[in-house]
């Protein structure tokens, strides 16, 4: 009797597990495939209705932005995948590889035709920056650094004027 019970249990478990295995032929899923949303990612650069959310998949954004004015790529030593840089005249878009897809790593504004969502652009005064982002974010040397969610927004000053605006993904 005991033996039979053991048999039944073993067969049952084997059957359950086989079911799992039989359908387990696919590839491993990639972790972190979830798409960060604008709500949780903090400061976000918007260009002609295109939101550039840090760590989000780059392909859809690149599609709406159209052809870049210039493009460079860089491989890191020994690793596969390329860090890519797209230049759109008024800003640079950087991506980094994550498995098979590219994700947005950085956006750097280059001239005063574009502005942050809060309205700061290159050449703006220190007072204007502080009135919008507050004086607390000043790093004491030359920049305002705002961390929120997955994004850090850095506003570099030169002679009390904004000289560079950079959105970058935050990695821990």
């Amino acid at each position, binding site marked *: 009797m005991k033996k039979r019970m053991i048999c039944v249990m073993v067969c049952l478990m084997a059957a359950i597990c086989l079911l799992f295995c039989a359908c387990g032929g696919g590839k491993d899923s990639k972790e972190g495939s979830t798409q960060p949303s604008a709500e949780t990612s903090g400061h976000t650069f918007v260009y002609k209705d295109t939101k550039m959310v840090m760590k989000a998949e780059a392909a859809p954004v690149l599609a709406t932005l159209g052809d870049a004015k210039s493009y460079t790529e*860089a491989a890191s*030593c*020994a690793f596969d995948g390329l860090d890519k840089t797209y*230049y759109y005249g008024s800003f*640079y878009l950087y991506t980094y590889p994550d498995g098979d897809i590219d994700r947005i790593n950085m956006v*750097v504004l280059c001239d005063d035709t574009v502005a942050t969502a809060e309205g700061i652009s290159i050449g703006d005064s220190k007072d204007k920056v502080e009135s919008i982002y507050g004086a607390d974010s000043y790093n004491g040397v030359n920049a305002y650094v705002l961390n929120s969610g997955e994004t850090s927004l850095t506003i570099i000053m030169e002679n009390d004027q904004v000289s560079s605006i950079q959105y970058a993904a935050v990695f821990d």
Partner: protein
Amino acid sequence: MKKRVFPIIIITVLITAALFFFLQALLIPKHMSETKEGAMIREYYKNAGGNEVVFIGDCEVYENFSPVTMWEEYGITSVIRGSAQQMIWQSYYLLEETFKYETPDVVVFNVLGMLYDTPKSIGDSSKQEAYNRMTLDDMRWSKLKIQSINASMTDEEREKGGIWNYIFPILRYHDRWNDISKEDFQYLFHRDQVTDNGYLMQVGVNPVKDEYPRIPLVNYEFGDTCYEYLDKMRILCEEHDCQFVLVKAPSLSPVWYDEYEEQVESYAEEHNLLYFNFLEHLDEIGIDWNTDTYDQGLHLNVYGAEKMASYFGQILSVECGVEDKRQDVALTALWESKTETYQQRKAKLEAEKQEE
């Protein structure tokens, strides 16, 4: 009856240990067909001894200078102790180790290493961990290796097993049981030579297209740790009566800012060191970004590396007084065979490229 037990136990323990080391050898990545960068550190020990010049640094040295060319043209014997994303403290410990094996006249250090101050500097900690392994795994065991490991580990490495992952690499690579391939059996106890005295040959051509953006940075200053190890390397060379030369390889990315240049120049001046920024001598060297790079200007291919060696070899023999060793019969025989290997490799790679 009782007496027999202990021999059996001892034999069992021995078998277990043998099995353990066999499995460990099997599971360690071999770096023979992919990521050959991981096999470079091990190769040094075959080329150790009798080198007049030692290069230390990351891919900007092992991709950009061809020792064989320097031998052919100037009779300079040199070796590259390079590895991917070599951090400056790793460079230091490799250098200190190198002095145990030879007494070079010149040590050349590529200053890109000054950009990375902590194991976190490159951002992605799992990548850093992979780079650590490639630089540290095949170093021979000594106090220096332990020090280098302790200086290099990422937070995650420290948390999950720490140095034990290096002492018993199987603890790190045990998950590879599912990825074991023919290569792992083939190279259980030996490795093929993947470099020519530390130079990793690339024959591909991928021209530079656009300029790399020079976006302003918040902070251009090199970190304290970097200066600390640069000082240590300089002093170490002094102690070994050896010239310490700084170079910046002709790579377009990562972007080399003027602010970086100023800091290196003032350091070199302060300590009376030679410093060459090859980015400023591209025309003299003859680098053509349409033919001499395999990855859009990040690294030179073999054609670029030969030009680079030819240019720098001149400097080494004239300004640093490195001797021409082509009169030495034994060395000549050795380097002739190295040259042959080099030429064969080049021919083979070029043929493979043709087929593609």
